[in-house]
């Protein structure tokens, strides 16, 4: 990657409504699909990317998740905001694997990201792109790691940030927001209430909403989880992915990544079985799967908090693509 060039090799082509299928230009700041309020997905010129994004090319690059720049949305190199995110290790916990009788168990250590979680991936890309498109004030609700990630990347990009958190959010996450210079609003309510207040901030202050699935590009950052998984496993995807899930964007991103890699001829048609794991007290994705719903609805009476998590309920294999979230897994009877 020649860092001196002004333009990246992004092949971003357009945005597409995840349900409506309507296409929109990708070079203006957009939130959700005007047609139905659903998420917009970034689409790329995969033919153009095919010749450039090869296994050999990626292997020879440095720069964490930005090694995949052909399939990321930032067009101008000056707007690539990085704190060293991505390229996290895939660890073989051999003793644990023996105890669990799963000989091929690996842990993808996302805690190695600069803000201590996979949320750094989504925010690195989304903040970079939002600022590139002119946003100056970014807002998000968060009950945890997204808060610090937004604050850290907004600071790095020179943008203002406001985070709305439930008052009982972990103190470490609150501190991270304040240390990074973002405005922190603690709300006596649930994360869904925080989302409402965050949207009011956007309306009143002209800020840009960075909430999960309310803008197109956090998924693009999380997509690099899937790229790295393919590379880590020698371009032969694992049999199963077990993923602790909040809103599901990590799973959506990975699924999108696999489709794009297949289109580039870098992997075959086989896909891992994707398992979303959520606690009984707050399990919107598992409930959506069990009900056969296309979209997960907010969980209104969350009872699970921190170390008081109750018994777990692993979701069955699912297809987390947004437009048919969870449905294909059920249809294939797995």
């Amino acid at each position, binding site marked *: 990657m020649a860092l001196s060039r002004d333009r990246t090799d992004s092949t971003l082509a357009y945005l597409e409504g995840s349900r409506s299928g309507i296409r929109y230009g990708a070079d203006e700041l957009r939130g959700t699909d005007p047609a139905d309020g659903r998420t917009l997905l970034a689409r790329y010129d995969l033919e153009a990317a095919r010749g450039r994004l090869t296994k050999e090319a990626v292997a020879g690059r440095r720069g964490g998740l930005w090694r995949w720049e052909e399939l990321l949305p930032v067009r101008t190199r000056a707007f690539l905001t990085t704190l060293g995110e991505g390229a996290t290790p*895939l*660890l073989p*916990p*051999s*003793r*644990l694997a023996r*105890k*669990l*009788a*799963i*000989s*091929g*168990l*690996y*842990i*993808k*250590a*996302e*805690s190695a990201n600069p803000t*201590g*979680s*996979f*949320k750094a991936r989504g925010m690195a890309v989304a903040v970079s792109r939002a600022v590139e498109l002119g946003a100056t004030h970014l807002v998000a609700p968060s009950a*945890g*790691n997204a808060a610090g990630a937004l604050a850290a990347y907004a600071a790095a990009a020179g943008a203002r940030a406001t985070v709305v958190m439930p008052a009982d959010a*972990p103190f*470490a*996450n609150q501190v*991270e927001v304040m240390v990074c210079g973002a405005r922190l609003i603690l709300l006596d309510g649930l994360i869904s209430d925080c989302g409402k207040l965050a949207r009011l901030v956007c309306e009143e202050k002209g800020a840009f909403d960075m909430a999960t699935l309310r803008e197109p590009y956090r998924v693009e950052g999380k997509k690099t*989880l899937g790229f790295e*998984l393919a590379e880590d*496993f020698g371009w032969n995807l*694992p*049999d*199963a*992915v*077990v*993923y*602790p899930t*909040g809103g599901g964007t*990590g799973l959506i991103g990975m699924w999108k990544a696999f489709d794009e890699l297949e289109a580039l001829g870098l992997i075959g048609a086989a896909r*891992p*079985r994707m*398992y979303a*794991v959520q*606690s009984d007290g707050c399990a919107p994705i598992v409930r959506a799967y069990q009900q056969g719903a296309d979209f997960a609805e907010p969980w209104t009476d969350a009872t699970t908090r*921190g*170390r008081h*998590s109750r018994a*777990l*309920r*692993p979701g*069955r*294999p699912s297809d987390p693509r947004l437009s048919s979230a969870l449905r294909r897994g059920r249809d294939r009877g797995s």
Partner: protein
Amino acid sequence: MQAYAAREGAGFLGLESSAALAALPLMRERDLIDAGERVALFDTGAGFKSEPPSMAPPAVVPNDPSAWPEIVSGL
């Protein structure tokens, strides 16, 4: 579960990740995962950022060399 994972050499997993780890035995029981499969478990966050688990704090040792042999012998 965080402590179990850490003591088995998996590092200080995030709270939600240790919850996912706790699901693995159940998934094996239900034949959702086979013993020989390649499985990627995501540790999506850092254990040190969540509320610490409930643990008794260690006792403070007196700065008295005459008391140390007894402490060392108890290790």
